[in-house]
């Protein structure tokens, strides 16, 4: 089942002195439970493509469909709500809310969606256990290591069972051990929750684990390898 469809997507930045074709006629489909990596050198358009997929930016031309919904037809307020219900984000710099505990960070999205307290607590416990941090539920981010924070971020991204999770260089700030642990957890969650993961990465470990590798160069897809 397709969760994400990109049809001839272009993104052009037209400044007064600079004209940048950041994403050039990209057409891609993503299915449920895919574990895909988007790779390419710096400036190849990975982050721009991820922003377009995540609805954080609008394409200059082309269409993006998430679970059949055309993003270009959504108003700004509808887009924010749509993101909340359908897309999970894992950022390079973790971006946890520093004043909230690990538990509260994971619960945050669910409370925005007005889940009942019981359902929130159940799902939070389930995810914290899955990422191996059930015993650190009441710790604030400042008391957690980088790897632990990123695991909490993954739990947060999965909390409301989105259609897919976008992870922009999630291992970039982690040591190798933490990065490996994180990736193993993400692969396991991908398998258990059947949620699509789309990475933007330079990390060869991510590329090695990915079931599909999409290579970008100068904004265009130069290869799209699906591995068994």
């Amino acid at each position: 089942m397709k969760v994400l469809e990109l049809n001839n997507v272009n993104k052009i930045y037209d400044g007064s002195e600079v004209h940048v074709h950041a994403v050039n006629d990209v057409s891609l489909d993503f299915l449920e439970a895919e574990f895909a990596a988007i790779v390419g050198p710096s400036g190849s358009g990975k982050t721009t493509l991820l922003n377009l997929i995540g609805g954080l930016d609008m394409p200059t031309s082309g269409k993006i469909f998430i679970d059949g919904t055309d993003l270009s037809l959504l108003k700004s307020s509808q887009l924010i709500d749509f993101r909340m219900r359908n897309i999970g984000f894992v950022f390079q710099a973790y971006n946890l809310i520093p004043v909230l505990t690990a538990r509260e960070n994971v619960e945050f999205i669910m409370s925005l969606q007005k889940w009942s307290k019981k359902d929130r607590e159940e799902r939070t416990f389930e995810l914290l256990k899955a990422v191996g941090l059930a015993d650190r539920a009441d710790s604030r981010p400042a008391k957690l290591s980088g790897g632990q924070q990123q695991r909490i971020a993954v739990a947060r991204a999965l909390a409301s069972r989105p259609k897919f999770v976008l992870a922009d260089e999630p291992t970039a700030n982690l040591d190798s051990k933490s990065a490996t642990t994180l990736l193993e957890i993400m692969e396991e969650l991908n398998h258990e929750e059947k949620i699509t993961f789309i990475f933007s990465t330079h990390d060869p470990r991510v590329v090695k684990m990915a079931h599909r590798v999409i290579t970008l160069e100068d904004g265009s897809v130069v290869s799209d390898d699906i591995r068994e």
Partner: protein
Amino acid sequence: MILKTAWKNVWRNRVRSLVVIASVTVGIFAGVFAVAFMNGMIAQRFDAAIDEEISHIQITGKDYLLNNDPEIYMTPEDGIIPAIKSIPGVEYVVTRTIVTGMASTASKSAGVQIIGINPDREKEIFKLYKTIIPGTGDYFETESKYDLALIGQDLAKELNIIRFAIDSTVLSKLRNKEVPDEITTKLEAFSGKRFSNGKKFISTVTSVLTSHELRQYGQLIREEAWSYRENSRMILTFLDRENNQVSSVFRIAGIYDIKNAIFEQSQVFLRNEVLSRLTGIDESSFHKVIIRINDLGESENITNEIRKKFPGLDVKNWKELQPDLAMMTDYVHQIYGFFMVIILAALAFGIINTMLMAVLERTKELGMLTAIGMNKKKVFSMIMLESVFLSITGGITGMIAGWGTILLTAKKGINFAQYAEGMEAIGYSAHIFPEISASFFIMVVILIFLTGIASSVYPALKALKLDPAEAIRTE
């Protein structure tokens, strides 16, 4: 969750938040206490005016007030008193006979208004009988071979009936009242000296004592140092009905002190039958009717009703008799509200500054929140709540501090003895008892809440303008 997050965000930078909260606390405390102080002053002035000077409504003959012509008087045949007593809401009615004259002693004289009263009836309306200075006599209770007159403290000083002196008796009394030796030693330099008025006395004492000593003991020294010779007499001179000059000796029955220098200097009270005998005005005739009512809110209605019944008379309620007092009581709440708005507007700038810093520091975080699905309404609400929490926290602590200070000072009052003469010259007591109403506190809470909301608008709009994709990339 937004509420919890907003509250926790307030304490993200503890020092900064505490500084803002402290500034709001101080501002609110100062505002609340200043209002309580002003309230106390106005309330005391109002009570003094009603209970000691003018009461609620006064009636005189037409044009009487223009030149106080004693020939413009009212009689029982006019049917005024029974008609007024029949009006619902009227509590007590008294009449007064008034002439203008001169009070003299061997050394000084002063122009006065001489008022003939029924002392027992007057007690129903005025509390003058409670203001007799101890040791100066009483309220027409002790008989004398001379006719009796009640005069004010300032008139007594004017006529040199009251003087100030520091002697061994005064110093001994001060020591017994635990005034420190260093102060009594300084005062000994003036032992045996008499001061003809309070101003000279205070000026001399001020020159030898420190401001701290004056604040602590000034009032006590003043109270002990003034002296009054018992059974003092004065001469009252005025015109009778035939325009003949009449002079008569009066014994000072007592000296009253209502903390209003102008009133005390000019108003002399005699028994009505005495004034009647000396002026030839019939004892049952009167120049003024004074009315006390049950409900202050009905004063205008009752005044209008009396005017309808007696269109030929001059009827005035307390607002018309003392328009300055009316202005203060009518507009005082607007003045307080305006005062608090100014304080809160100043505080709001501090809150806006703090919230702007908080938003700009959290650009990345706010971008992330928008990215993961926090809509603009919730972002705005979160920023607004943080601002409201800051202002409410400071506001509550400020109100508690203000209320606590008011409680402490309301019982014993705040004594401005060193300014007593100046304040009494304009009718205000130097001993202020701060007071505040519950409705004012409610108004302050609402204003603080609105300040919090208003202060959040600009920073929140700044937060809403962030582009999530760019914000997340911010270092």
